[in-house]
């Protein structure tokens, strides 16, 4: 054994490492980014959950209730209140996912307060996100406790100046859960489906594309009369077909493993295919734009991990977007994963139908159009 030979190998490897910016970048930036993104993506204080308030009572009592509710909202800003005039409108938006819960003050609330006849408030929640559900339900229960402490059980209609010790609750909070309990594996499934599409995009649109380019295979196509738009659309659509195949497979296998109810519902499967199609096109166009000027085969491999962290975790796949700091929310707004995960959750956890996914489909389609246009603009038809 000769030390010189060992050192020669060490020198060789170190020189190569130091000359490869992509590898350097990923080895330094990847762990840091993972620390920061994951650090803020998990277990953050949930803020800005949209809650619908429907006040059918419209009296001083219900106003008092709403003011207290607003006071809670203004404090830690956990919730954001939207006033609705009718319970049916609110329910439609709850099912479509525009609000996460409804606080319903029925028309007989003030009469029952005056009668001391257990006035009721209904709390109807979208319980598909357990993190959000537990946060807002706790707030709601605190609110009701607070109200109950301020009401005089002995003289209905009179306020107490000094809070009494806790008594039997006068206001009854009735909690309605819209969906069966969602296990975390069901919650995670949407992210995993989106991830499978992303991996196909990464391999097909990133690694294979750059490898073919560096092997000179593209030169063989560039000498033919194909235009760059034709070439790019061909590459993107083939990538999208592969993405849809992967996404569909993971939807079925993952759906069976996670125990999604009525997985074979044909209408939902149809919508799932639409979501998977738009997601695939968006992901592959995104990857294609990133890689359009890259020629070093190490680059896509090196940034794989970085992209994975940067796109998957901020998407709301593992923890609600409402728990993120502002900058992470910013990423989630421009992250195609977010809309894919949102639409997949709407379909798989709530079976919302088209109204729960159309905004995501519009955004993903718009996103794809912009990315393809940019790719065509940046693609070099010449060598």
């Amino acid at each position, binding site marked *: 054994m000769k030390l010189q030979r060992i050192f020669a190998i060490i020198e060789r490897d170190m020189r*190569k490492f130091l*000359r*490869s910016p992509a590898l350097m970048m990923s080895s330094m930036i990847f762990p840091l980014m993972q620390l920061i993104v994951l650090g803020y993506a998990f277990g953050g204080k949930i803020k800005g959950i949209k809650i619908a308030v429907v006040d059918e009572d419209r009296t001083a009592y219900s106003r008092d209730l709403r003011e207290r509710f607003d006071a809670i909202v203004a404090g830690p800003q956990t919730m954001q209140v939207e006033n609705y005039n009718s319970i049916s409108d609110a329910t439609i938006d709850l099912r479509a996912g525009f609000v996460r819960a409804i606080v319903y003050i029925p028309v007989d609330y003030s009469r029952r307060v005056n009668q001391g006849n257990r006035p009721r408030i209904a709390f109807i929640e979208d319980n598909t996100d357990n993190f959000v559900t537990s946060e807002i339900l706790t707030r709601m229960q605190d609110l009701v406790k607070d109200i109950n402490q301020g009401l005089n059980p002995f003289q209905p209609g009179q306020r107490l100046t000094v809070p009494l010790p806790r008594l039997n609750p006068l206001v009854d909070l009735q909690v309605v859960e819209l969906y069966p309990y969602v296990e975390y594996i069901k919650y995670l499934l949407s992210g995993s489906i989106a991830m499978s599409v992303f991996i196909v995009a990464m391999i097909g649109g990133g690694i294979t594309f750059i490898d073919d380019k*560096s*092997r*000179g*295979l*593209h*030169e*063989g*196509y*560039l*000498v*033919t*009369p*194909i235009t760059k738009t034709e070439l790019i659309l061909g590459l993107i659509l083939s990538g999208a077909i592969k993405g849809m195949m992967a996404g569909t497979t993971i939807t079925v296998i993952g759906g069976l493993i996670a125990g999604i109810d009525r997985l074979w519902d044909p209408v939902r499967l149809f919508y799932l295919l639409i979501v998977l199609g738009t997601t695939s096109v968006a992901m592959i166009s995104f990857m294609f734009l990133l890689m359009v000027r890259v020629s*070093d*085969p*190490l680059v896509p491999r090196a940034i794989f991990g970085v992209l994975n962290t940067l796109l998957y975790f901020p998407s709301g796949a593992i923890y609600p977007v409402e728990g993120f700091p502002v900058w992470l929310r910013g990423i989630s707004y421009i992250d195609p994963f977010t809309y894919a995960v949102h639409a997949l959750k709407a379909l798989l956890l709530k079976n919302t139908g088209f109204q729960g996914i159309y905004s995501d489909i519009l955004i993903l389609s718009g996103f794809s159009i912009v990315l393809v246009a940019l790719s065509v603009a940046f693609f070099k038809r*010449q*060598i």
Partner: protein
Amino acid sequence: MTATETNAIEVTKLKKQFGDFVAVKEVSFTVRTGEVFGLLGPNGAGKTTLIRMMTTLTPPTSGAAEVGGHNVVTDADGVRHAIGVIPQALTSDPELTARENMTIHAKLYGLTSAERARLIPQLLESVGLTEFADKLVGSFSGGMRRRLEIARGLVHSPKIMFLDEPTTGLDPVSRTAVWEMITKLKESAGLTILLTTHYMDEADKLCDRIAIVDHGTLVALDTPAQLKDSVPTVDIVEAEFDHPPADWKATLEKFGGVASVTEHEGIWHISTTNGPTTVRELMDTARDRGVNVRRVSVQGTTLDDVFLYYTGRQLRDEASDSVKRDVSHLYK
């Protein structure tokens, strides 16, 4: 349109600059319809850049090129329809079969399924790949891939073929096979071939005319025979004698056209402007003087001499560009 029916390619003051480096310096030449035209030069001479400009892969910095009557800048699509290109790197898809490679290329050129069904088996047959038609190209040797690529480049019946170092990296058997193919192509009516090479024997054997390229300029352009004649040297007559007399060197130096005579370990080198004449004179003199000639041979002017004469350098076989490119990321 300046290209006439007799000229397949017209290149006028074509220049390519990469930053400060001028790869091709205002080169002009024409290639006649039906000829095999060779660009001969060492690696880095600018051959590939020149071919890429002519095949629309690289935009020229200045100057013009008309290929098949189409301007490479203003009518790139017209050029692409008229030409077949075999780039230097192996560009067939290893993950596809030979037939699939052919089919996809045929579709890129807009061939109908009837045309594909007729042409593809024909072309595969002509390059001797019929029995490998449905094998993955990844399992092919370099020579087989090159032959497939030549067939692929012919699928749309182009008027002009560009072959960039068609035999670089191939073993001698494969080289011969590729040469035979090119000779066959030359015989098929009307096809013009432009090839680049850094092999003298290849240029000599295949080309009707040769342009010698060095440092981005054309240093000479003519038929191989004319190029050899243009070099003012020398045939070398090499001979061995039994017991030459003492004045033998002086005798030989008096022959017509002889420039110098050297002797080393019994082997004589006579450099002369006319080998055959010198040999006849040598044989006559040796018989008259009773000197037994054990061996005599004449080495005529080769393209190596031509290259040396025009560039001042030997043409060496350097590492091929395609190999360098494939692993370039490892050297960054």
